[in-house]
């Protein structure tokens, strides 16, 4: 077949497996490496979370002194955001996007390999700080002046350098994904037939390109402050401390949508397949994704309501408004399930778990959008609750759904569904036990980032509950690890299209060949495989009338 000529990796002579992986430019292998390393970082970040929870189970100092404790949550937050969720979603995007648009690889395969390899190295740089006099301890937000040379040691420099490198990786990855989506779509794959996951990756990549460089400029300025006597954020030398917060959050808020939009995309793939219905309101979905991306750049100062240095009404209204497109998605998902034929595979359970949990996190955010309420809640455990409901109940649940959903495609094997359900049940219960009580702690006044609290503050019971919940989550993750391990040792069980799915990645073998496709079905809607299987007859217009791009 002529297509073999397209394979970048048809070696004429044998090479070792390890060498093959180390030098690969195949988007699928790179995707798997992204995902694997992200899971490893998740375990590290999770162990730090367990340490934090254990310390907080009782007043007094149990086993993390204040110094180590501050390092622990700083590195926990940094690891989870920059080394777990971001690379994880980049990994899924890497693996899935070229397949879903019917391409043979990414637009720039070698840059793709570079973007991946930066991640473990920047991670090592960041973590080397533990051996070099202590990690950064100023929170994942590293507010100045606490992160200036006067108050923070080498760990902070390594944090800056690690994130700068990590940012380079993200930017290169985003450019690559955008070029791939714009240039390598198969014939017939018009923009309005892109699977929603691809759309969310597209918008996320745009956000990355606009937001990450701004963080980079802040990191550089702080680095100059710390090492070359700069005066950017040092009020004593004429600089402005609040400037750091502006720069950080101008990046930081789009960042949180970077962490959730591809998760929305995953859910939008899983729900239709297991409801056996198309995604309800495809165009509204695209529009909502784009408007979240745009609005996301206008809300950053909602993290700074209590600084007394920002114009409150503007940032309050934009923050409120961003709930609207998110709500559209929520209702469209439910409408997708409505009158469907729901199959409760583990992936589907996690998708439904996502809806249930993310809703809570989103509503928490709406409280904070109201400035007076935020004056009470800011920097308390309420915020910790909010951020975990959206990031753990949201992004991490979606990542779990994606893991169960695409594992058969990547390996040709089903993860064990029975273990999967056990995993889901424990993790779901654990999540709410851990993070729900934090609302109550927050409104009763428990500040975040404290290593200790007074025994008479009345906070212990809820903290014990949260700690217990976190152990449950840990146990659930062990079940997942066992499931993956056992499955990989077992035989191949999955066919090419084991879920009876809709999109192109299921139109090739599991796992796909290096060049991805021998042939492609004709693409007439955002569900080419569905059209193929159900012949279009009777369902002829795969898009509702009015969807402009019919051939």
């Amino acid at each position: 077949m002529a297509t073999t000529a397209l394979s970048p990796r048809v070696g004429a002579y044998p090479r070792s497996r390890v060498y093959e992986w180390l030098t690969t430019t195949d988007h699928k292998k790179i995707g798997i490496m992204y995902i694997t390393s992200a899971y490893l970082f998740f375990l590290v970040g999770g162990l730090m979370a367990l340490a934090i929870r254990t310390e907080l189970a009782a007043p007094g100092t149990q086993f993390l002194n204040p110094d180590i404790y501050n390092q622990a949550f700083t590195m926990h937050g940094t690891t989870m955001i920059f080394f777990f969720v971001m690379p994880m979603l980049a990994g899924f995007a890497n693996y899935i996007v070229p397949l879903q648009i019917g391409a043979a690889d990414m637009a720039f395969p070698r840059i793709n390999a570079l973007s991946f390899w930066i991640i473990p190295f920047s991670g090592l740089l960041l973590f080397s700080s533990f051996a070099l006099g202590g990690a950064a301890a100023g929170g994942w937000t590293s507010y100045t002046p606490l992160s200036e040379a006067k108050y923070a040691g080498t760990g902070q420099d390594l944090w800056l350098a690690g994130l700068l490198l990590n940012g380079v990786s993200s930017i290169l990855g985003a450019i690559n994904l955008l070029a791939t989506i714009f240039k390598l779509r198969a014939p017939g794959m018009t923009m309005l037939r892109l699977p929603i996951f691809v759309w969310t990756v597209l918008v996320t990549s745009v956000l990355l390109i606009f937001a990450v460089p701004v963080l980079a400029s802040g990191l550089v300025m702080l680095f100059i402050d710390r090492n070359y006597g700069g005066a950017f954020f040092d009020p004593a030398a004429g600089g402005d401390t609040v400037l750091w917060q502006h720069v950080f959050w101008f990046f930081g808020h789009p960042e949180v949508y970077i962490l959730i939009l591809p998760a929305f995309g995953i859910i939008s793939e899983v729900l239709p397949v297991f409801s056996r219905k198309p995604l309800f309101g495809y165009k509204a979905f695209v529009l909502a994704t784009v408007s979240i991306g745009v609005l996301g750049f206008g809300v950053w100062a909602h993290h700074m309501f209590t600084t007394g240095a920002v114009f409150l009404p503007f940032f309050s209204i934009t923050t409120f408004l961003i709930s609207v497109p998110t709500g559209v998605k929520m209702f469209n998902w439910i409408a997708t399930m409505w009158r469907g034929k729901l199959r409760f595979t583990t992936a589907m359970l996690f998708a439904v778990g996502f809806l249930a949990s993310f809703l809570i996190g989103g509503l928490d955010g709406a409280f904070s959008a109201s400035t007076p309420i935020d004056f009470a809640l800011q920097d308390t455990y309420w915020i910790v609750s909010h951020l975990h409901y959206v990031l753990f109940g949201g992004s991490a649940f979606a990542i779990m759904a994606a893991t169960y959903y695409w594992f058969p495609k990547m390996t040709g094997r089903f993860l064990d569904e029975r273990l999967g359900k056990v995993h889901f049940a424990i993790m779901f219960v654990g999540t709410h036990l851990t993070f729900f009580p934090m609302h109550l702690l927050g409104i009763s006044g428990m500040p975040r980032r404290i290593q200790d609290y007074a025994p008479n503050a009345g906070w212990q019971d809820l903290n014990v509950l949260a700690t217990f919940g976190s152990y449950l989550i840990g146990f659930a993750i062990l079940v997942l690890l066992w499931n993956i391990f056992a499955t990989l040792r077992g035989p191949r069980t999955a066919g090419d299209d084991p879920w009876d799915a809709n999109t192109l990645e299921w139109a090739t073998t599991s796992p796909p060949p290096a060049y991805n496709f021998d042939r492609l079905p004709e693409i007439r809607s955002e569900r080419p495989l569905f059209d193929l299987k159900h012949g279009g007859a009777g369902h002829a217009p795969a898009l509702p009338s009015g969807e402009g791009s019919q051939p």
Partner: protein
Amino acid sequence: MIRAPHRARQSLKVVAAASLVALLAGACQADSAGIFPPSPVTEQGVLTQDLYRFVFAIATAIFLLVEGLIVWAVLRYRRRDDRLPVQTHGNLIAEAAWTVIPALIVIVLFVMSMQAQGKIEAKSAAPDVVVDVVGFQWQWTIGYGCPDSYDSATNVQPGQDCDFALTGAGKQGPDLHVPTGQTIRFRLHSADVIHAFYVPRFLYKKDVIPGRVNSFDVVVEQPGTYAGQCAELCGIGHAGMFLSLTAEDRGAYDAWYAAQVEGAKQTPAPTQAGAFTINLSATTAAGFDQTAVSAPADTPLAIVFQNKDQTVQHNVTVLNAGPDGGSAAGQPNAQPGQTVTYAVPPLKAGTYTYICSIHPNMTGTLTVQ
């Protein structure tokens, strides 16, 4: 195709129910935490509480509606046969409804928030009492009767220029008093990093930022003593930056104020004659210049402490010095650049630890022979 075995689904439901019960039990058992903020003690806090209740009601309604729809869909539309369901792609009217209705809701929430915010952030032209709060790693100094220049002066050290200043020692924060029913202005200054002035019963906090002076007005309505705590990460002592605030009627407040002014005038007791002198100093909060000193037993000691740190105050506290195991001296704190002499009663032979009670990481060993 994969289907959950019946047993698995059954146990799922049991687990879900059990967790719900556990959650509710947890929520109810807690001594002071609930789904509403603790009852506010300021005029402004009451507004916040009302707003919170309103948003809570709306959020609960949305929560119940959406979770209800999810649960309904999950229970009702479970696959029962293999026929393809009707392939609906969208519905313009429905989608418009769930765009417009939430939009209207958030606009209402926004308007209400702004109305409350206007009142909560309002500043009186002539507040009855002005309290200056200086946050530093990791304590507060509170200045009463400080000059007007403090309105904009960013690097202040309440001391001689004010009527009096309060500080706490260790985790025991300063004890502020304010009169009830009157407008109190808090002016917030930082000597080093960012802190946040937070009294949970105010339902309010404000950042304490170096290079800026933030301020806010409150009227405390409920008399009582309320705990406060720093709410912005400020280093390893962040969890121990407490303060306590007592609201009392104007008469009691005035009496307290007069007593404080009187106390500030008193000079510290002179050191005993024949005391053995120990010289200590500190240039940063990282530690004392000497971490091991020695002194003769059963002799009164005078620790002459020179604070060379230009940003924060320190002290020298000898732990377990008293017969009852209490610590010796430690007060008053030495302001930046100041030298303070601490008188320590005669000690028995042995080793003692001295610390700065503001920065418990600053330690040293005193060997008494």
